[in-house]
């Protein structure tokens, strides 16, 4: 296919004209597209920033590049099928995703999972939290320019993924929860292995502390950058570690207990800073805390079945339920409406990242391009979780 120069010019001209129309231009400012393909956006977020020199005058996140129509898809699928699908909303902590949906189903049906199942669910949720945060700890380093941490993050994350895979069969998308319990019990030797790996997680946290957290350059890049005051954060619906890093002591695991959390004693870490560094710090502490929770729960794992008595074909009686939980990325909620069919009638998903990035236009005003990257990285969102 040969293309003549003229064709090219015409083509480019057409696109330019369209783009000009699309974004209103001011005289002085330069409009820069960061994304949809850009190393800083963890995939396909697009941020249109208006720059004055290197300073962001206005930032406009353009989302939807990863929109897959979840809420529509759930209407055509049965409960087990939806369970497999919602793994893929927040793909880093898939197991944690499944839990609230299953809970919603269980609530409408009035079933309770046996205690062993609840414990294992909690352990796996915390494991996925660890995996998510380890990736963050490395990725954040990469975004502010350090090459090495990301490799350590991925290395140590593999240990945790191995555990999840050994138990559930999937590194990413476990599909291990069933309404009424779990698909199966964990294999022999798994608990001992987990204990061993938790030591590695602690070690890994120390590595990150040495490598980055106290590094002066890292401090200079992240301290005081992207400060979210607690009230503003709450106002925008920011949740999870991002909110806790702004000094708001808010953790659904403690404040609206679910799973086995009421039975464990854990600390909710907060930091008054509200800046990117606090977010890093809080996540580092939470990784350790999660590992501690895992060890604690494994010590007290009750024996018994992992599945309650449920009919073979699941039909959920009419009713509705709203369940929200503390996911690694923040507050995740499902509003499930059932009309008695084998699948839900309507599922409304409240995903953490969506609310977390809604603060971006507010947060990015007046920052510099390099800080923009730091802020995007420290907010830690997953595109699938934003766009669904």
């Amino acid at each position, binding site marked *: 296919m040969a293309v003549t120069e003229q064709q090219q010019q015409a083509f480019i001209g057409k696109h330019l004209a369209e783009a000009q129309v699309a974004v209103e231009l001011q005289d002085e400012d330069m409009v820069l597209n960061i994304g949809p393909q850009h190393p800083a956006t963890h*995939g396909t977020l697009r941020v249109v920033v208006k720059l004055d020199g290197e300073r962001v005058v206005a930032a406009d996140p353009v989302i939807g590049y*990863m929109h897959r129509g979840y809420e529509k898809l759930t209407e055509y699928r049965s409960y087990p099928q939806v369970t497999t699908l919602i793994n893929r909303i927040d793909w880093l902590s898939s197991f944690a995703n499944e839990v609230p949906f299953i809970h919603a189903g269980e609530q409408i049906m009035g079933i309770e999972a046996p205690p062993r199942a609840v414990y294992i669910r909690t352990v796996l949720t915390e494991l996925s939290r660890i995996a998510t945060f380890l990736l963050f700890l490395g990725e954040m380093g990469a975004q502010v320019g350090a090459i090495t941490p990301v*490799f350590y993050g*991925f290395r140590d994350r593999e240990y945790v993924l191995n555990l999840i895979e050994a138990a559930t069969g999937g*590194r990413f*998308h476990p599909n291990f929860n069933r309404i009424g319990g779990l698909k199966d019990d964990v294999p022999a030797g798994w608990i001992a292995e987990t204990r061993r790996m938790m030591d590695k997680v602690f070690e890994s946290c120390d590595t990150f502390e040495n490598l980055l957290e106290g590094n002066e350059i890292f401090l200079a890049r992240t301290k005081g950058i992207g400060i979210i005051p607690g009230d503003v954060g709450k106002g925008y619906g920011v949740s999870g570690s991002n909110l806790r890093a702004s000094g708001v002591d808010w953790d659904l695991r403690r404040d609206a207990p679910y799973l086995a959390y009421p039975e464990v004693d854990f600390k909710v870490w907060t930091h008054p800073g509200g800046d990117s560094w606090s977010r890093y710090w809080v996540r580092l502490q939470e990784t350790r805390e999660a590992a501690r929770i895992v060890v604690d729960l494994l010590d007290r794992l009750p024996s018994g079945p992992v599945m309650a008595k449920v009919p073979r074909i699941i039909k959920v009686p009419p009713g509705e339920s709203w369940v929200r939980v503390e996911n690694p990325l923040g507050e995740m909620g499902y509003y499930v409406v059932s009309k008695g069919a084998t699948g839900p009638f309507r599922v409304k998903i409240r995903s953490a990242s969506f609310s977390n990035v809604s603060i971006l236009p507010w947060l990015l005003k007046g920052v510099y391009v390099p800080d923009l990257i730091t802020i995007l990285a420290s907010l830690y969102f997953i*595109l699938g979780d934003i766009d669904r």
Partner: protein
Amino acid sequence: MGLVEQGKIPKPLTWLMNYSRKYSLWMYQWGLACCAIEMGAALASPRYDMMRLGVIPFPASPRQADLIVVSGTLTDKMAPALKRLYEQMPDPKYVISMGSCANCGGPYWDSYSVTKGVDQIIPVDVYIPGCPPRPEALLQGVVLLQERIQNEEMGPRWRGEPIIVGQPGAHDHLPETAVAVSSA
């Protein structure tokens, strides 16, 4: 000009050129969805370390890339960007489609906003099944691609056709699929 297209490259040189293209697959870092994390693991996790195979993840811009791994769900909104970025890569370029979403829509086969397969938009050289494929599966896909690059015919590739393996000129009188299948 265009010695390759005219088939004027001597045999040993062809081998060398194929060999260096095979082991210098600069891979363009672009993740789309869950599979991207597994791609990241294959690259960045010391356990897999795709760099061993000569897949170098340095270029962040398509201009220096040879290989694009479409890892994850491609939505209709994203598709024009994918096509543009692919076209912005200089030839010769390779495409790996990773995961069910990229292969043909995967779990979102009935979604209104998902493109059912990247091969509708850009030519794909290797398909990797899985949801997500394990990093090893990606490695295996890369090894497969490398085998094919080693044996590929450069002329057609230079013209932008998918990898054709076999004797020079043999593909002229064969239907395309027949040749493409007869490899590996």
